[in-house]
């Protein structure tokens, strides 16, 4: 993975000093809150319901054990002993003091981490496939480009005060595990008819108040034109994106209001105007970065691991876990391990300091010192020898990280909601817990098959409920929380926004409602048909009937 050189070190160190100075000026009143707020947001520090919240960047969801250990350490010394992994591959600490923030950033910088631009109207963490560099279906590892974009977007002088936040996602696989079609810019690597590699550039996807699937602005952009083209997109947005209404300021609104054709024309006109300012320096830099992402020194192993197979045969719990949490690796004899942060009845995405340390240890011993964070709020050990899977699982069991539910009903994605977030209208975590308990039976989860349940505690949709197979949106009327259910959303390659199926439910009615939906699916599904496929085939009617025919 990427390693800082002297320039990267100097950059974060100076940034830390700049923020330290800004914080001092705020504390002594030289800066007002209005002036300080955009500056502290650019360093990932929010004022939330209970305290300041610090969102630390985990660039493209990749970190090593040293970094994970530092996060564990920070959680104990500056927070309440835990952190929350987010739907954008970052980590959040909820109990931070402003006065401590500069020191925390300094400690992060020492392990090549930062919280730069994890908030604010600027380019946020560039996210990618959590199986990058390991998945068998990958055309190429997207992380070198993600790292290039990270540097390119860091304190970009032109794009620091955009109309609104800006999120970019990159996939190097035709199976989109990075939700690129619901990002402000989504990039998909693919081959043209001549077999050359290039990018599909999708612009204007997004969730929130007005969910939209992005528009393909360029079907095939040659690799070496990427940064120039992205600058053109950003410049058009910065110049003519709406600034009159915070809720209409994302690029998706601009694309929608101009229309795809007119938007594309603006971008192409701007792109044509560009002088060769970068002179190939960006491509030289990409080559340099790519060297850090050379594959680890894999052993030459047979595809079949007798040890692994024997453990599966002898241990039902291990077998079950291996079916849901272990995925195929590009290399023979290796596997990708998804570590579930969704224990039964637990808080989705939360990990204690102890759990973080355990994962760091496992990464070091068994995964070439690499961990990933997925936007489903789980962790990944990307390169585990099949021979070692049983040992890894045993350790996960000891740490409460063994929930065998990845991609299934228990693997619920939920934003922090009203329990933590000052923007929320309703709580999301108790809803997740209720559903998790209702579907605790792992055999039942396995029988149901792939099922994405996403919960957002407000219309800002940080829980990505619009792209849940079952989406749940927390609302509020007269101080009472209630929940609206959507069906049939997806963030994968055939992305879709879920449709609202009817009036909302009280919090304690939601697990029943989800159960009715699942039961309906099980009754009507065809041989081998997944929940999502059944939704698309059947439409909302059968589910509406099941939910509302005798309801109220």
């Amino acid at each position, binding site marked *: 993975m990427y390693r800082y050189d002297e320039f990267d070190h100097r950059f974060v160190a100076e940034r830390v000093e700049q923020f330290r100075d800004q914080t001092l000026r*705020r504390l002594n*009143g030289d800066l007002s809150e209005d002036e300080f707020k955009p500056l502290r947001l650019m360093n990932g520090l929010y*004022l939330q319901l209970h*305290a300041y919240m610090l969102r630390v960047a985990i660039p493209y969801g990749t970190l090593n054990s040293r970094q994970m250990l530092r996060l564990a350490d920070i959680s104990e010394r500056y927070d309440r002993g835990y952190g929350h992994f987010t739907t954008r591959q970052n980590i959040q600490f909820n109990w931070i*003091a402003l006065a401590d923030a500069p020191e925390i950033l300094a400690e992060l910088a020492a392990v090549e981490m930062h919280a730069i631009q994890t908030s604010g109207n600027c380019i946020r963490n560039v996210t990618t496939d959590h199986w990058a560099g390991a998945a068998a279906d990958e055309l190429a590892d997207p992380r070198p480009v993600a790292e290039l974009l990270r540097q390119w977007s860091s304190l970009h002088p032109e794009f620091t005060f955009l109309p609104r936040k800006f999120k970019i996602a990159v996939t190097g696989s035709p199976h989109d595990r990075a939700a690129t079609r619901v990002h402000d810019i989504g990039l998909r690597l693919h081959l043209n008819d001549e077999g050359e590699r290039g990018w599909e550039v999708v612009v204007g996807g997004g969730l929130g108040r007005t969910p939209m699937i992005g528009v393909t602005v360029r079907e095939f952009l040659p690799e070496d034109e990427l940064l120039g083209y992205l600058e053109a997109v950003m410049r058009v947005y910065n110049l003519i994106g709406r600034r009159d209404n915070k809720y209409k300021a994302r690029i998706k609104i601009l694309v929608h209001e101009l229309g795809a054709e007119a938007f594309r024309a603006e971008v192409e006109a701007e792109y044509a105007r560009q002088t060769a300012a970068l002179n190939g320096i960006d491509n030289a830099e990409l080559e340099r970065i790519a060297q850090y992402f050379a594959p680890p020194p894999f052993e030459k192993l047979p595809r079949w691991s007798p040890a692994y197979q024997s453990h599966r045969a002898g241990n039902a719990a291990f077998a079950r876990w291996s079916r849901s949490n272990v995925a195929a690796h590009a290399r023979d004899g290796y596997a990708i391990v998804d570590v579930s942060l969704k224990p039964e009845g637990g808080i989705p995405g939360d990990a204690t300091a102890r759990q973080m340390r355990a994962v760091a240890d496992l990464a070091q011993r068994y995964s070439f010192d690499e961990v990933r964070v997925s936007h489903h709020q789980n962790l990944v050990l990307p390169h585990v020898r099949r021979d070692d899977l049983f040992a890894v699982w045993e350790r996960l069991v000891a740490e409460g990280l063994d929930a065998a539910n990845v991609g299934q009903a228990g693997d619920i994605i939920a934003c922090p909601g009203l329990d933590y977030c000052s923007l929320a209208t309703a709580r999301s975590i108790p809803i997740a817990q209720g559903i998790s308990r209702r579907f605790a039976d792992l055999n039942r989860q396995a029988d149901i098959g792939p099922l994405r349940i996403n919960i957002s505690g407000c219309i800002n949709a940080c829980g990505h409920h619009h792209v849940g197979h079952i989406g749940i949106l927390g609302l509020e009327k007269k*101080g009472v929380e209630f929940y609206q259910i959507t069906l049939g959303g997806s963030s994968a390659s055939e992305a879709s926004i879920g449709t609202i199926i009817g009036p909302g439910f009280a919090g304690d009615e939601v697990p029943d409602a989800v159960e009715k939906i699942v039961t309906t699916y099980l009754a009507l599904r065809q041989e081998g048909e997944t929940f999502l496929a059944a939704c698309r085939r059947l439409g909302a009617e059968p589910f509406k009937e099941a939910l509302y025919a005798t309801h109220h």
Partner: protein
Amino acid sequence: MASIDRGKILTASQLRGGTVVFLARNGRWSDHIHEAAVALEPVAVEALQARGREAEAANIVTGAYLVEVERRDGRVTPIHIRERIRVTGPSVRPDLALQPSPALLEA
């Protein structure tokens, strides 16, 4: 007979620490909601807000705002669930409870 009032208190976040505080009857900022000064009349409400603006200008707190509460036998409870959670801490982490009154959530 129990005395029940409905009024407003002023809450804010400590600038340095970020923790939730309430403007208390003695004019200081307290992290105990039951010490909060409850304003029952518009004049008193305006006075609370003025104190809040002063404290913000003095860089002691930030983000001061009014919260509707009920005061019953000297115990102050916010009306809205969001404000109750802000007082007690996350409902899903009673171990982190800021004020030992989980009953506030059922109010």
